[in-house]
């Protein structure tokens, strides 16, 4: 398939967002967002629902006008960059839809056509094989499961060999095997083709597996941005534990003096233990207060704790 290589300049920083602010009507959606994504990097974009992740993506792609700050997409301001820059970006949105009357192959050919490409049947087959859909290339998209649609969405996003891939929940609806294949494919893309990937997800294990860097957006601001290992090291605490509780702590029993709740995810509660007391004393206090503790893990330094810290306990 013909790509746009000949006309491409090759900036190392594919996306650079500085102090981005954006209002929609009277609502201040983004207050101060900064992040950057380099070639060959996978940047995880995290944040609670409504934090401004999707708006950040739309502004970064030049689809929404910003009120303050700067955005450089492939070295240019996306607001005036036009088709030439957009041709070098692939997007997998969430939700991810198609014209249901088309087959997988027709759908891919249609989007290739929009990028000025005319791939033959063999090339389309190769593209579909890349995402595990070659067997169903002639099937209408209307008959596809959600996981198959995600795979086809990724093939669509990659149809013009983009330098920057923006993926919103790419593994939603995929079975564990499918997730693993998708992860391997994205890692290979980033490593072999120097594609930059902006990965917007709520799956923290996915971020840990795929992303070298993360940006966490909370209430329209970048709460943290940087290398994942650096961020975790900076936040690591020897006093952070994870408790699995059989139920909620009893009401009216009073707050523990030596334990502070940092956040909750599912059955697990992240707590910080008072450095002045040994942990065993803290657990005794909790049991005395009637906390239904089932399991205790040392939890300092994980992405989940970092996320919980930054988002003040909001669900991912």
């Amino acid at each position, binding site marked *: 398939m013909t790509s746009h290589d000949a006309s491409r300049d090759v900036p190392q920083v594919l996306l650079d967002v500085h102090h981005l602010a954006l209002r929609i009507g009277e609502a201040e959606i983004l207050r101060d967002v900064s992040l950057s994504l380099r070639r060959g990097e996978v940047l995880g974009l995290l944040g609670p629902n409504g934090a401004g992740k999707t708006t950040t993506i739309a502004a970064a792609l030049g689809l929404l006008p910003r009120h303050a700050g700067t955005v450089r997409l492939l070295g240019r301001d996306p607001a005036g960059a036009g088709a030439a820059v957009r041709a070098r970006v692939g997007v997998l*949105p969430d939700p991810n*839809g198609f014209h249901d*009357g088309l087959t997988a192959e027709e759908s891919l050919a*249609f989007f290739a056509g929009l*990028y000025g490409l005319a791939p033959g049947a063999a090339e389309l087959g190769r593209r579909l094989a890349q995402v595990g859909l070659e067997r169903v290339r002639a099937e209408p998209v209307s008959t596809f499961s959600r996981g198959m649609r995600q795979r086809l969405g990724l093939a669509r996003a990659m149809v013009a060999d983009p330098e920057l891939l923006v993926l919103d929940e790419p593994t939603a609806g995929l079975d564990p095997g499918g997730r693993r294949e998708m992860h391997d494919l994205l890692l290979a893309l980033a490593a072999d083709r120097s594609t930059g990937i902006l990965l917007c997800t709520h799956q923290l294990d996915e971020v840990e597996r795929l992303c070298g860097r993360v940006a966490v957006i909370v209430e329209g601001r970048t709460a943290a941005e940087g290398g994942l290992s650096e961020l975790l090291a900076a936040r690591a605490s020897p006093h952070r534990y994870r408790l699995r509780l059989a139920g909620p702590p009893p009401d009216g029993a009073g707050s523990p003096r030596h334990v502070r709740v940092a956040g909750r995810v599912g059955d697990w509660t992240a707590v910080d233990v008072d450095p002045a007391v040994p942990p065993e004393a803290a657990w005794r206090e909790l049991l005395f207060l009637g906390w239904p503790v089932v399991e205790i893990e040392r939890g300092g330094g994980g992405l989940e704790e970092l996320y919980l810290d930054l988002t003040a306990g909001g669900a991912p």
Partner: protein
Amino acid sequence: MTPAALVARIEARELLASPRGRLWLLLLSAALSAFALLLVSSTELGLLDRAQVLYAQLGLVTALGALLAVVQGADAVAGERERGSLLPLLVAPVSRGAILRGKLGGQAAAWGATALLALPYLWAGGASGAGLLRAGALLLLLGTPVVLTFGLLATGLGARLRTVRAALLAALVVLLLSASPLLLGPGLRQTAAGRAFDLVNPFSHALNGFDEVVVDSAPLAAQVVHLGVVVAWFALALRYALAGVRKVAR
């Protein structure tokens, strides 16, 4: 193939090849059949002469075409947004104008299919030879701008409102109002307000053009005023839709 042609081809395929699209054509055909059977079974309608039958059929075909265009128009942006297929389209290296031209092409193809579907019914109603040709020309000249005006209106509404349902409802209300002369007939012109409405309403101009040519045997060339008004409305609707599509962010 240009991006606009690509989009138009896909939109047209959705109508002609997909089960949903063919169901629409089947419903249009059923509506035209119901009217035709009413003509032969109703004592009152059976007394209409051929010109009156043709006039009524042309109005009905235009209204059905506009209805289909409204459904397509509401889906053009708002539907793509709800399905999650809009963002990849917006990010693709295609101008908003080309996207709109493509969507408009799809609506025009649907109208073409509707008009073709109507031709056998016009023949059955009594039009043949030159009469059938004249009816086809009327649908092309006066029906096309009216139908596409409503399609563009729905497209513009879909770009501004958040859901297909809201866009569809708003566009249908406008279409019902505009097509009301089809039901009210000349009675509408008995009041000053009715006459003023008739003067600005594109649907009225199409109907009046059909009336003058088919019933009163006026020449097609004499329909310049009616044609001018419906084309002006088309231009306004195009501008409205383009402004809406340009504003769409995701």
